[in-house]
C-alpha cells in the first residue's frame, strides 16, 4: 500500500513516466519527496510528500513551560534563528500584559533583520547551487558567517540563539555590537553589486528563471502563500507593515513587489529585501540608545489564560502562532503556522506544465526549510 502512495492517479497510463524526486535529493533543501509524472519533458502531475523531519513540536511544547517553549521554536526554521521565537514571545506578552521597553524592541528588530539578511544569503547560495553555480555559495556563506559571529558575541550561540524572552531580550548587547554591525553593513554594501552581477544579471539565471513557474496574484492569495513568494506575485502584503510589531512603526522601509510572479521575480524580491534590511538596520543603529533597559518586568512563573494568534514577517513569510493557555504555566495548545509550510502547497500549481529541469529552479525560489515545514 505505502509503496504506491501518490502514484494512484497515474498508475496504468503508458504514456506517462513516474519520477520520484527525493527525499534525499540534494536540490530539495532537506527531505522533500515529490512524485512527478512526466510526458516527455513536461510535468503533468506533482504530488509533494512531507513529514520526514517531523518531531511534533506542538505536542512536546504542551509539556514544557512557556520559558522552555522559546528555545524549542528555534529548531523550526534553523537558518533564521531568533525570528522563530518572536511570535510566541509576542503572543504571551499580549496575554500576560507584559510591557517591553523601547530599547528592547529595537534590539529585537535589529536581530530580526540581521537574520533576514543571513537567511536570504543562505537562500542565494543554495538557489545558485541548484542552478549549477558553486561560486556564489562560497561567498554568501562567508558573509553569513560574519552575521553569525555578531549574533554569537551578544547572544552566546550562532544559529539557535534563544535570545528573545518575555519582556525583551536575555542579555544586553555586546559593547562592540554597533561597530560590528556598521562594519558588516559597509562590507555587505560593497558585496551586493557582486551578488547582483553573479545572480540577477547572470544570463544563465535569466534563461532558467524568466517566465518560469508563474504564480498569478489571485492564486497566490487563495493558496495562502506569504512573504517574498506573495510579493513577487504583486501583492504588497507584509506583516511588518500590515500588523506592525516591535520597532517597525519607527523605521522607514518599502515593500518591494513585482507583478511578474515568475521565478526570477521571486529572486529579485529577495535581493530588494536585503537592501531594505540594510536600510532598517542603519536607522536602528542611530536610534537605539547605547545603554538602557533591555528587558522589562516579567514574572518568573508565567500563568496564562486565553487565546491569541500573533504573526511576524520572517524571511519566508507570515510565521504565526496560536497560543491557548488554560491558566497554568504550560500552554494548553500551541499551533505554529509555518510560512514555508503554506508556501510549499503551491508545488502542484507551479510544477504542472513546467519542464522537469525547471522544477529545481522553481523549488529553490520557494526557499523551503524543512525544520519549519515538518516541525
Amino acid at each position, binding site marked *: 500500500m*505505502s509503496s504506491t*502512495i501518490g502514484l494512484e492517479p497515474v498508475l496504468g497510463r503508458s504514456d506517462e513516466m513516474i519520477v520520484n524526486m527525493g527525499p534525499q535529493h540534494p536540490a530539495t533543501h532537506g527531505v522533500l519527496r515529490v512524485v512527478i509524472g512526466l510526458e516527455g519533458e513536461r510535468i503533468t502531475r506533482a504530488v509533494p510528500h512531507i513529514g520526514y523531519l517531523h518531531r*511534533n513540536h506542538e*505536542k512536546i511544547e504542551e509539556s514544557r513551560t512557556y520559558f522552555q517553549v522559546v528555545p524549542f521554536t528555534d529548531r523550526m526554521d534553523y537558518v533564521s534563528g531568533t525570528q522563530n521565537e518572536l511570535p510566541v514571545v509576542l503572543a504571551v506578552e499580549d496575554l500576560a500584559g507584559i510591557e517591553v521597553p523601547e530599547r528592547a524592541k529595537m534590539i529585537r528588530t535589529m536581530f530580526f533583520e540581521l537574520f533576514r539578511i543571513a537567511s536570504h544569503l543562505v537562500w542565494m547560495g543554495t538557489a545558485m547551487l541548484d542552478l549549477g553555480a558553486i561560486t556564489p555559495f562560497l561567498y554568501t556563506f562567508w558573509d553569513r558567517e560574519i552575521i553569525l559571529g555578531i549574533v554569537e558575541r551578544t547572544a552566546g550561540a550562532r544559529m539557535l540563539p534563544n535570545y528573545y524572552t518575555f519582556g525583551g531580550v536575555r542579555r544586553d548587547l555586546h559593547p562592540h555590537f554597533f561597530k560590528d554591525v556598521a562594519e558588516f553593513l559597509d562590507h555587505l554594501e560593497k558585496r551586493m553589486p557582486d551578488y547582483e552581477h553573479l545572480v540577477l544579471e547572470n544570463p544563465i539565471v535569466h534563461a532558467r528563471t524568466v517566465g518560469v513557474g508563474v504564480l498569478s496574484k489571485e492564486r497566490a492569495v487563495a493558496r495562502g502563500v506569504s512573504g517574498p513568494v506573495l510579493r513577487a506575485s504583486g501583492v504588497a502584503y507584509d506583516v511588518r507593515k500590515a500588523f506592525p510589531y516591535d520597532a517597525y512603526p519607527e523605521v522607514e522601509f518599502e515593500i518591494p513587489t513585482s507583478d511578474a510572479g515568475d521565478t526570477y521575480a521571486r529572486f529579485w524580491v529577495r535581493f530588494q529585501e536585503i537592501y531594505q534590511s540594510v536600510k532598517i538596520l542603519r536607522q536602528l543603529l542611530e536610534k537605539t540608545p547605547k545603554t538602557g533597559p533591555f528587558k522589562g518586568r516579567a514574572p518568573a512563573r508565567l500563568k496564562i489564560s486565553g487565546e491569541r494568534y500573533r504573526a511576524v514577517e520572517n524571511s519566508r513569510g507570515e510565521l504565526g502562532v496560536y497560543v491557548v493557555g488554560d491558566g497554568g504555566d504550560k500552554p494548553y495548545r500551541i499551533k505554529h503556522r509555518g510560512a514555508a509550510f503554506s508556501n510549499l502547497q503551491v508545488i502542484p500549481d507551479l510544477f504542472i506544465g513546467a519542464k522537469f529541469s525547471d522544477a529545481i529552479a522553481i523549488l529553490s525560489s520557494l526557499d523551503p526549510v524543512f525544520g519549519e515545514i515538518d516541525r
Partner: protein
Amino acid sequence: MDLRIKRERLFDEDVYTVHPDDYRALCEQLKKDGFDYPRAISSLDMGYGLRVVLQLTRMSDLAKVEVRTDVSYDVAAVDSVTDLWPGVEWHEREAYDLMGISFRGHPDLRRLLLEEEWDLHPLQKRYDTGGYLIPDWRPADWPDPAPWQEPAPSQEDAAPEGGEGE
C-alpha cells in the same frame, strides 16, 4: 439566513463561534464578504470534544476573523472549506493527521506528516507523549451551551470597529 452563532471581539480579531452544522454556511458568507486570505486552521482538544479554529484575513482592509466550531469525539468531522480557500488544504490534512478531525469533501484527505498506516492522532489529550493511550482517560462533560446570538453577521457588521487597516 439563520446561523447559530456567537460573536465576540478579542484583541484585533472578530471571533465567531458557530454550530458545526452552520460552519460551512458561515464560511461561504465570509468568503462573500471578501475574506480572501486563509492564514491557518488550528485544531484543539477541548477535553469534551474537538475544536476547529479557522483564521482569515481580508486583504483589502486587513480585517481579521476567527471561526471556531466544536464537535464531539464521536462525530469528529466538519465540512471542508478547501474549495473556498485552496490554501487550507494542508492545514486541514494536518488537523486530520494530528488531531483526528475529518473534513467532509476534502479532495485528498490523507495523513500529511505521520506514517499513513498509523491509527492514532497524537495531539489528542488522551495520547501520552510516551507513545500510548492513557488507559483511564474519559471525556469531560459538554459545557452548558450559551444561547446562540442573533442576528447573523452581514457585510457591515463584519467590518472591524475602529478601523484596523491602513
